[in-house]
């Protein structure tokens, strides 16, 4: 049996603005999932508890929620594992200053609604914006030739399929979006879920809108707003390498010649520095990225840096055998690859 205390963040707009924690003690058979535990509570303890669910086996993507602070599919998460996790965290907390006082009794498994979206009731969130962002990337196949004969197949090789298959298994549960630090910092950011969908269609050889898709996602709140924290890859319950696929999407946009974003200029400044000395000269990044105005924007920090001698001008020392590095960079540039 698994013995657990669930601490559920409850919210009912009819009962006031504030959310509150409610605890439920359960004892359930080994192998019980978090979703099954919630269903047990709803059925036998508290019928007012609200959450979404449908398939119960990791396909529909409905039961995304935060368990112990991490967005997960409740149906794909073992209760025993998160009880153990809660106990480990409580043990750590004893060693730190200012940690929340441990719960009376055993540590509780904290269950909260997904982040980066408003809560409707309890664990049910309003996913309107999430769906709007998904629609923005037009997640459907768009061949130019729209009416092939009914018995004609649009074929691809296994290798071509393998590339897009990496983004195929997304169930749109919102786990990556919930915990995306870039969405939190810039709420207009299109977010990881939509970018994975975009990857899947941009790399589909049967689709003829790759350039337009990439162009659309090259704006301020498109693919370049990702801060590469890898939380999305870490969270994905279907184990997609979400951030890595966003990187491949960005790379494809370079092959398509979409290079005006400040993030691309920043990356090119890396390449320039590497070609010169083998290393990036981070002092060049503000100017390379934002132009004179950008550099001025950093003046206070730059002035202080100069004062402490850190940003003092003058060439950096090159790495040993910088000639080899230069040849490698030159080759990349010549190969018609994606470098400037």
């Amino acid at each position, binding site marked *: 049996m698994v013995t657990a205390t669930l601490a559920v963040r409850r919210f009912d707009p009819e009962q006031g603005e504030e959310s509150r924690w409610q605890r439920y003690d359960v004892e359930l058979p080994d192998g019980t999932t978090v979703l099954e535990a919630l269903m047990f509570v709803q059925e036998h303890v508290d019928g007012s508890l609200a959450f979404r669910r449908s398939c119960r086996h990791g396909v529909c993507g409905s039961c995304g929620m935060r368990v112990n602070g991490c967005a997960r599919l409740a149906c794909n998460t073992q209760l025993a594992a998160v009880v153990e996790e809660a106990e480990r965290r409580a043990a750590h907390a004893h060693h730190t200053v200012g940690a929340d006082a441990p719960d009376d009794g055993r540590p509780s498994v904290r269950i909260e609604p997904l982040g980066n979206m408003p809560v409707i009731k309890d664990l049910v969130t309003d996913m309107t914006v999430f769906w709007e962002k998904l629609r923005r990337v037009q997640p459907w196949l768009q061949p130019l030739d729209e009416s092939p004969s009914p018995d004609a197949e649009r074929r691809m090789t296994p290798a071509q399929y393998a590339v897009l298959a990496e983004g195929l298994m997304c169930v749109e549960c919102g786990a990556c979006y919930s915990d995306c630090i870039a969405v939190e910092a810039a709420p207009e950011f299109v977010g990881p879920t939509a970018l994975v969908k975009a990857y899947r269609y941009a790399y589909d050889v049967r689709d003829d809108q790759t350039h337009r898709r990439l162009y659309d996602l090259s704006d301020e709140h498109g693919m370049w707003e990702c801060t590469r924290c890898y939380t999305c890859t870490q969270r994905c319950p279907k184990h997609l390498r979400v951030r890595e696929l966003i990187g491949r999407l960005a790379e494809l946009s370079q092959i398509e010649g979409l290079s005006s974003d*400040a993030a691309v200029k920043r990356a090119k400044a890396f390449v320039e520095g590497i070609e010169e000395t083998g290393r990036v000269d981070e002092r060049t990044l503000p100017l390379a990225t934002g132009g004179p105005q950008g550099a001025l924007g950093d003046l206070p920090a730059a002035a202080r840096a100069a004062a402490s001698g850190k940003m003092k001008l003058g060439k950096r020392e090159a790495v040993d055998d910088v000639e080899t590095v230069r040849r490698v960079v030159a080759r990349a540039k010549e190969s018609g690859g994606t470098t400037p």
Partner: protein
Amino acid sequence: MKYAYYPGCYAKGTAPELDAATRAVCEALDIGLVELTAAPCCGAGDVQQIDGPLGQTLAEMTLAQAEELGLDVLTVCNVCTLTLRQAAAGVAEELKGDGGGARCAAVADPACAVDERPGEGSTVGDRPETDGVPQPGEDDGDAVVVRPGVGHLWPASSAVAVKEAKAALAEQGIRYGGGVEVTHLLWALWKQVGVTRLESLVTRRLGGLRLAPFYGCQLLRPGDLNQDDVSDDPSALEELIEACGASPVAYGSRLRCCGWPVMYSRRRAASSMASAAVRSAAAAGADAMVTPCPLCHAALEAGQSGDDVPRLPILHLPQVVGLALGLEPSRLRLDDHLVDTRPVMARLGLTFS
């Protein structure tokens, strides 16, 4: 204990204090460092997202140099660590000969149920001829079959970068054979030296100092490439801080992003990430933040340029360990910070000599 030391661009650039403190601490702890003086920038993920093959080539040059020395790589930067590990993982997949798409060694979230755990011999076995590409749902008797959705997939698209990097390196007479591990100073201190031994070597306990550990993203995530600690619940920094006699502070931002990857390209987002982290640590009563990453360090210092953000010294991990080992503050170059570290020193009754 001896490593091929890869300082990275910041420690050789605007964070020389990190290089100095690393060398001083490693000397005190008998960790041998052979600097990779010909190693280029790892690409930092910046190069990788505009030119995958070039990024892979640069990272493999460093790995190849360490391999020639017969040493594993020690980094002092989160981004260097992940970037080199990603390059090494790409080569490892290529050496397995399954053309990418194969499953990595572990799942990221141990709490999530998986129907099969990858383990020994979890590579693709006797699959039918499919151009080396995994077929979803395929079952092949006892052979472990790769299915999307079970374990992480290594991007087949990265296989292209690995192949092209191999050709580019061959032209320069360079070959990386796949035999190098990449680690970070944090893991070397926590796992190789160990908390107990470190504690026994402490001569200046940092009693009364409240330090907020800031891990940085790319040393923890993704969890299959960074298996050194529990990605969503690490304790290494806290344990090292305790071993030094200081008190680790609990606060909300310890596993958050500093914003460095979008610094300069998305200014508002970047500075809000950095300043939120600083505010969170200050509100929890920290005297300083400690980070294993010079990019976090740069972002967290720059994030304090606004008047509405409290001033909080940002210390490099080896500076904290160095202080506890009794090293002189000037040797750890604590006077070389943008945000004044003297309030920290004053708490310890120290001054710059």
